[in-house]
């Protein structure tokens, strides 16, 4: 019985019932058999009898090629797969989701594909939660290479850490000759209801338009009728599962795709003549979530070897006084402490309360309304690419729109 290979059609008896199906897999003592009715049955190996192999069913062919040009229309867009739900296909027998991409599938499901010629490049897929700064460098180099041959680029990416990658790429690219648009999906593309289709449609249009930033293109709301383009350094995933999880924090998206057409805000950066990549990152940066239970020892333990420490403080940028000695030590040894707010919305302002003023005196750098995650990544970028003496000055200057100068009064914070 152990000899029957997965993918074999079998006859068997289970609970006195003769059945027929394809053996899909076996694990932990259960056989997974797809019946002729389409249902998968999970049966304990020891509860079936008379299993008989009939014939082997060919496995479904996936898409194997890694790089190709997928020519349809005049607009040249690089199409870079890194993994994530959007670049996945389901295996209809096991239900497993494989990180591959089938151009045929794109043709069937992306309405505006005929306008574009895709320069497809599938990187070794990596789950977005496993992405590290090294991956950002690889992505950035790929983008730079591809932008030399295409108008813009879309990057397919898992949503979990998409905003981190978008921030990193934003800082790494001092100038861009074409738009870089990250696309993800919150519902996998094997589902008829996937958000991937509209996001892809919009992402291609954004990548063919004229702005020189790294953006994130995701559903603007829960309906399939609009896609927002968020500035990479201002976007955050604000819901674990909704298709409109991404929001531009403290401001409006820089672009929108609706009714088949793209609008780009005049606040978006213009294209440059050439792409300039600063591909160094200093990774010894800590991100600390301050809370009433956080002790000085905790802070000391994590920040010991860090060049910079970004604190997610409370309110306008505060921490308990119990942390002051550690902060003093960090600053004293020449490393940096930066303040952001765990509220996520709104700015730190360390002049309002005495706690803030004291922290400023200790040398803490107040990062206005920069998002904590963005502050961490910007620190990585600045530490690696600027003289240390300029760290504070560069952190406080608005390099890529990572701070919002004017926050408007929206309906909700």
């Amino acid at each position, binding site marked *: 019985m152990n000899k029957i290979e997965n993918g074999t059609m079998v006859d068997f008896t289970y609970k006195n019932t003769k059945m027929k199906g394809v053996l899909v897999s076996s694990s932990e003592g*259960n056989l997974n058999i797809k019946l002729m009715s389409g249902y998968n049955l999970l049966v304990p190996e020891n509860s079936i009898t008379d299993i008989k192999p009939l014939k082997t069913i060919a496995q479904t062919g996936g898409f194997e090629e890694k790089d190709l040009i997928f020519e349809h229309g005049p607009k040249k867009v690089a199409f870079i797969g890194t993994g994530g739900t959007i670049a996945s296909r389901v295996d*209809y027998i096991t239900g497993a989701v494989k990180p591959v991409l089938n151009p045929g599938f794109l043709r069937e499901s992306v309405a505006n594909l005929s306008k574009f010629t895709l320069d497809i490049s599938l990187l070794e897929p990596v789950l977005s939660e496993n992405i590290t700064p090294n991956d950002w460098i690889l992505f950035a180099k790929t983008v730079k290479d591809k932008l030399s041959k295409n108008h813009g680029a879309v990057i397919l990416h898992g949503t979990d850490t998409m905003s981190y990658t978008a921030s990193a790429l934003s800082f790494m690219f001092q100038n861009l000759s074409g738009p870089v648009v990250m696309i993800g999906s919150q519902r996998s593309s094997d589902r008829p*209801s996937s958000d991937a289709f509209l996001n892809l449609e919009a992402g291609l249009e954004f990548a063919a338009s004229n702005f020189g930033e790294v953006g994130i293109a995701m559903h603007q709301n829960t309906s399939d009728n609009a896609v927002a383009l968020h500035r990479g350094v201002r976007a955050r995933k604000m819901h674990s599962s909704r298709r409109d999880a991404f929001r531009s924090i403290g401001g409006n998206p820089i672009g929108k795709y609706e009714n088949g057409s793209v609008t780009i805000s005049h606040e978006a950066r213009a294209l440059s003549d050439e792409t300039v990549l600063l591909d160094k990152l200093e990774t010894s940066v800590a991100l600390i979530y301050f809370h009433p239970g956080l002790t000085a020892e905790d802070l000391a333990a994590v920040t010991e070897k860090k060049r910079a420490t970004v604190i997610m403080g409370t309110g306008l940028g505060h921490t308990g006084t119990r942390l002051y000695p550690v902060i003093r030590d960090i600053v004293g040894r020449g490393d940096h402490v930066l303040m952001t707010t765990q509220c996520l919305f709104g700015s730190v302002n360390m002049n309002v309360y005495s706690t803030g003023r004291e922290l400023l005196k200790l040398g803490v750098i107040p990062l206005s309304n920069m998002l904590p995650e963005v502050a961490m990544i910007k620190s990585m970028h600045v530490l690696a690419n600027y003289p240390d003496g300029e760290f504070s000055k560069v952190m406080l200057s608005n390099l890529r729109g990572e701070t919002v100068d004017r926050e408007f009064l929206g309906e909700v914070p």
Partner: protein
Amino acid sequence: MSSRVMIGLEIHIQLAGKKLFCDCTTESAIETVNGKVIERRLIATTGESGKYDPAAVYEKSRSRSFNYSVTDNSCLLEADEEPPHSVNSDVLKKAISTALSLNCQVVDRVAYMRKIVIDGSNTSGFQRTAIVGFNGYVETSRGKVGISSLCLEEDSCRKLEEHNGIVSYSLDRLGVPLMEIATDPDIVDEEHAVETAEIIGKKLLLAGWARKAPDAIRQDVNFSMGHGRVEIKGVPKLSTIKAAIAYEKERQTWLAELSPILKGTNWGRLKFQDVSHLFRNTKSKVIASNLKAGMNVYGTVLPGLAGYLKGEKYRMGIELADVAKLFGSGGIMHSDELPGYGVEDEIKGLVELLKPGKGDGFTIIVSTHKVIGLIQDAMIARLKKLEELDLPETRVVTEEGTTHYLRPLPGGERMYPETDVPSIAVEEALLEAARKISPKSEEELLAQLVSEFGISKQDASVILSTTQLETFQNYNLILGDSKLATRVILQAIPEMENKTGRPISIPDLIPVLEEAGRRKWDRQILERAMDLYFVEHMPLGDLIRSDEMKPIGGNELKSMIILLHNEAPVNPKNIIPRIRSRTSRPFSPAEALALVKEILG
């Protein structure tokens, strides 16, 4: 042609309580929440063998978009904005119990699947379904009918309307637990089908698990008589089952007769052309108004179909009209029924233009330039299928029992595992729990209600026939008083619904009953509390602290009894009603009786 008739049933029963994969109730009190509507599209994707499911391809060719009204009994899951929560263990237990009572084998692990459905009736584009039991049977007067499977699945959205290619659904029904019981094709005729449906249906209704709603039970009928399986969807009533089977039997019989006659017809001659100019001054109001709305009239010959479109026996006209309707057209008008519908003067022109040959019929249809090509292709395809007696398809039934073409049968491609829901091991403990609640026969239940709970046979039979057994059991548990529970169900609630003019929902009622149980309210107090709560909208917290609801006891109760005694002697028999006549506040009858004893010495 004289092949044996084989009939199978799929009986769908909605279970009441919470939905299958979330904490929403199966009942909805308001239609839409702040008029919130979600707009969505669904995209059919390739199945595992790289082929689309035919039903999916067909839906795709219709390119509709979908609007979903958000109801109070829907959450992010129904909006397809979060993964399913864990399986509702209560309904799983009931499904297993049902499977056992239908003599089914129960699976060792319940593994959910996604069944692709892209008519928009599921926001996800699929329906979650799992086999719970298989290979069972029921005894009928004509022998055993096999139960091939019992599945526990999500119900789909309720369709509200379709307009300009936009289909509107309500999310209220989406996710309601649905037991699907499929029989083997062991049923021999329409009477037998009705009997089988009745036997299975009653089992569940008596258990009191089904929703109290007109559409809580729906049947699909699988019918074949040698030309392939026809699936007739959504038969609401038992009488319709009968009519539908009879209709379908008759239909397939004349189609079988007609098939050799039609063989070899050149269907390519069916070619619509714009004939609008003939209808400028038409007397047909329908056509006139459609022309005014910018539509056109198209006409074509129907090769070889004269007399078969609406003859004594043959109804090819309906077969073609079914196709037209799927593409938003109102139907067709054909030569077997013309002149008629106000179309009379135009016929000469039509004949001149379309030039039907001998034996040819012709037809006109109101449609648009965009769609008419699709209709033409679909009609030709359908005529070819009918010519070949290639009859398998999904059909829909009208209230009168006539059936109409709906879409091709779905293929096997459309199912794959739902990985978001871990498979559930059916342990012995679960089986045991399921056995405990196993549905009983009506007689068993009546006897049990009377003996165990001491309620009258008449009340018991009303509770059973209104499928409120489970509700009764719940209320009894909460109140600790079977008579009071009966009264609440049979009198208090109907009265309250009368007063408020709206249904009293169980989740709304439960907190009041819980207070009643905890505070040992009697009938009067409980009914007064229900009045305050449902009619006067007093918040529960205020209610239980209100003076009216404050228990009277101790010295206060004693004073009252002494007062009553001074008016006229009290005794254990008269004391309770006499106190009741004085105050509507709760009191402990036991305490009152004790006090009477004390006073009387």
